[in-house]
């Protein structure tokens, strides 16, 4: 069976044209990078449709694209929760309730909001954890790109430069890092956002023909239904009991664990996505950012989950054979997208599909680097290393941070290559740190009494609760270690996803309870005046300046909500 692409001249031309445009956008933006705000905050000047598409594209890196197609093949329709209840309600909440605080306060980042609302230690904890997490994520994206490039587009590279051996893996890694580095140093956050918009359209136009022809081959939705077990065709119908669905989760874990804790914790507090909204040109545009993003988000499963279901249907029909993971007997679901591209796409559109994949890998890196830049420059460098310098100085630091961020990402990519477990472990630690974050925001934004000490210890306590829960549970079939169970075994979950949902539930509950109790035990240090614009009850209602009633965020939110309900019923 064919496992590598044979690319024609036209495919390479298409790839080359894409690279020219990516670098060209950075070059064209260079002359606007006059102060640190232009570089790190995109000058707060972008239109809502641009920030809105970037908002979801930042979460549409190749890890997500490939991972969601893999989950589609593994779990079926139930994974669609990540695009509906696991994302949309949080986006509506961010737009209506939280964006006014982020955009309206003087904060330039999520950690800075924490500093204004709570105190220095809460900001420091979040800033350092976030900075480390973003460079690692960027490195993992880079590693994944190089790995995929090496496997599906072998180039026969075997160079010796100054005694260093450069193979295909190194070539793909270095070239992608160089391109990201150049366009990020030139255009900063705006470059990252513009390329995310470009990537969004590339993914839609590049993947649509694959899905179309795939559906034709299996015989449309009827064909998928005929070849997949009943419990892989519904999102809620089999969620009553964890044992009934392939993911091994029940409705409470989906509703509360994914739909509330994980989703709100990610979409409302992760600076990577929130930063896109904060780059918008006005309060109204900032609030519309998540809502405009939500509209295409709900339809993305057609492009990234359906391919997985097509692949599984074809496998069950006996016409497709998914490869095994190297050296194991486990099916490598991550190959779904490359396999389908190879199966259906002739020269020409094949290059287009590969460009879409590359674009999503590279913007995955760039998105993380852009968030890292802002947090490092403002929340770490300006706060702890060199405060009170000129703005020019911080612009320079921002540019150098880009260089350092990319270099550290390269190192991370090599660490990922040699020690797979180290990366799994680190991702786990970050998941623990993130899980309780929304508790601090929820209490902080809606209860003016909440104190800094309470928020800080709530975060720490929630992180510990997450690790304890993880340490006592395991997904089915896994052995003790990174996957859990390192303290003993109290419960076995139906899948890793199920375990993650429940870890989030415990971490959030612990953080909420701790923050609440410690708040009552500690003195409120911030005056009401200091909390103005940071807490709901002390902030004047934002007046929307949209010209027409149908442009108001509230109206858009209702439209998004109605579509969410209709889609949920359709895929019930």
């Amino acid at each position: 069976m064919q496992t590598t692409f044979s690319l024609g001249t036209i495919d390479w031309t298409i790839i080359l044209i894409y690279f020219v445009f990516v670098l060209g956008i950075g070059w064209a933006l260079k002359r606007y990078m006059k102060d640190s705000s232009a570089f790190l905050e995109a000058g707060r000047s972008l239109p809502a449709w641009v920030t809105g598409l970037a908002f979801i594209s930042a979460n549409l890196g190749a890890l997500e694209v490939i991972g969601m197609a893999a989950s589609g093949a593994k779990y079926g329709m139930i994974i669609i929760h990540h695009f509906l209840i696991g994302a949309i309600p949080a986006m509506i909440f961010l737009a209506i309730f939280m964006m006014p605080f982020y955009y309206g306060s003087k904060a330039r980042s999520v950690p800075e909001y924490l500093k204004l609302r709570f105190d220095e230690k809460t900001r420091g904890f979040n800033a350092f954890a976030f900075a480390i997490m973003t460079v690692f994520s960027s490195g993992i994206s880079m590693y994944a790109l190089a790995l995929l490039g090496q496997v599906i587009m072998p180039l026969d590279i075997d160079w010796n430069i100054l005694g260093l051996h450069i193979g295909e893996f190194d070539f793909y890694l270095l070239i992608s890092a160089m391109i990201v580095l150049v366009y990020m140093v030139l255009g900063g956050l705006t470059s990252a956002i513009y390329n995310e918009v470009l990537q969004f359209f590339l993914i839609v136009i590049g993947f649509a023909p694959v899905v179309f022809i795939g559906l034709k081959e299996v015989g449309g939705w009827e064909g998928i239904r005929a070849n997949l077990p009943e419990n892989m065709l519904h999102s809620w119908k089999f969620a009553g009991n964890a044992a009934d669905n392939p993911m091994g989760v029940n409705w409470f874990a989906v509703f509360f664990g994914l739909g509330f804790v994980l989703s709100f914790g990610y979409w409302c507090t992760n600076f990577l996505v929130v930063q896109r909204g904060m780059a918008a040109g006005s309060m109204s545009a900032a609030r519309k950012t998540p809502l405009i993003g939500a509209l295409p988000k709900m339809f993305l499963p057609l492009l990234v989950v359906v391919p997985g279901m097509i692949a599984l249907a074809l496998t069950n029909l006996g016409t497709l054979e998914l490869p095994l993971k190297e050296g194991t007997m486990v099916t490598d679901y991550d190959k779904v997208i490359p396999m389908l591209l190879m199966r259906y796409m002739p020269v020409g559109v094949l290059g287009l599909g590969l460009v879409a994949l590359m674009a999503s890998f590279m913007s995955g890196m760039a998105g993380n680097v852009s968030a890292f830049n802002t947090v490092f420059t403002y929340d770490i460098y300006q706060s702890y290393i060199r405060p009170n310098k000129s703005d020019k100085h911080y612009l320079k630091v921002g540019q150098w941070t880009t260089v350092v961020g990319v270099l550290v990402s390269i190192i991370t990519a090599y660490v990922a290559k040699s020690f797979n477990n180290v990366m799994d472990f680190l991702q786990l630690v970050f998941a623990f740190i993130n899980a309780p974050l929304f508790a601090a925001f929820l209490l902080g934004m809606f209860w003016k009494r909440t104190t800094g000490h309470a928020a800080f210890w709530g975060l720490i306590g929630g992180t510990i609760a997450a690790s304890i829960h993880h340490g006592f549970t395991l997904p089915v079939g896994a052995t003790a270690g990174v996957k859990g169970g390192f303290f003993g075994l109290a419960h076995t979950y139906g899948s890793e996803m199920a375990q993650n949902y429940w870890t989030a539930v415990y971490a959030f509950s612990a953080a909420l309870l701790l923050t609440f109790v410690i708040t009552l035990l500690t003195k409120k240090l911030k005056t009401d005046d200091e909390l103005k614009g940071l807490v709901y009850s002390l902030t004047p209602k934002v007046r929307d300046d949209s010209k027409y009633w149908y442009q108001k965020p509230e109206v858009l939110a209702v439209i998004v909500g109605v579509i969410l309900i209709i889609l949920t019923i359709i895929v019930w």
Partner: protein
Amino acid sequence: MGLDIKIPIGLMFSILGVILTILGVVTRGDTEMYEQALGYNVNLFSGLVMLAFGGFMLLTSRLFKKKKED
């Protein structure tokens, strides 16, 4: 930001659209090449969609609006 993103997006999709459309027209009737795509001339279809999208982006971009005003 000074650069209107619609311009590079419009240009890139127009250029790629032209390439794929030409490829699609030239290879029209090449049943062997399109066998794997179940007989659909995917290059022609994708090329035309991209041309339309790229053209739309350029037409609604600042580039075109400015010309009108002048």
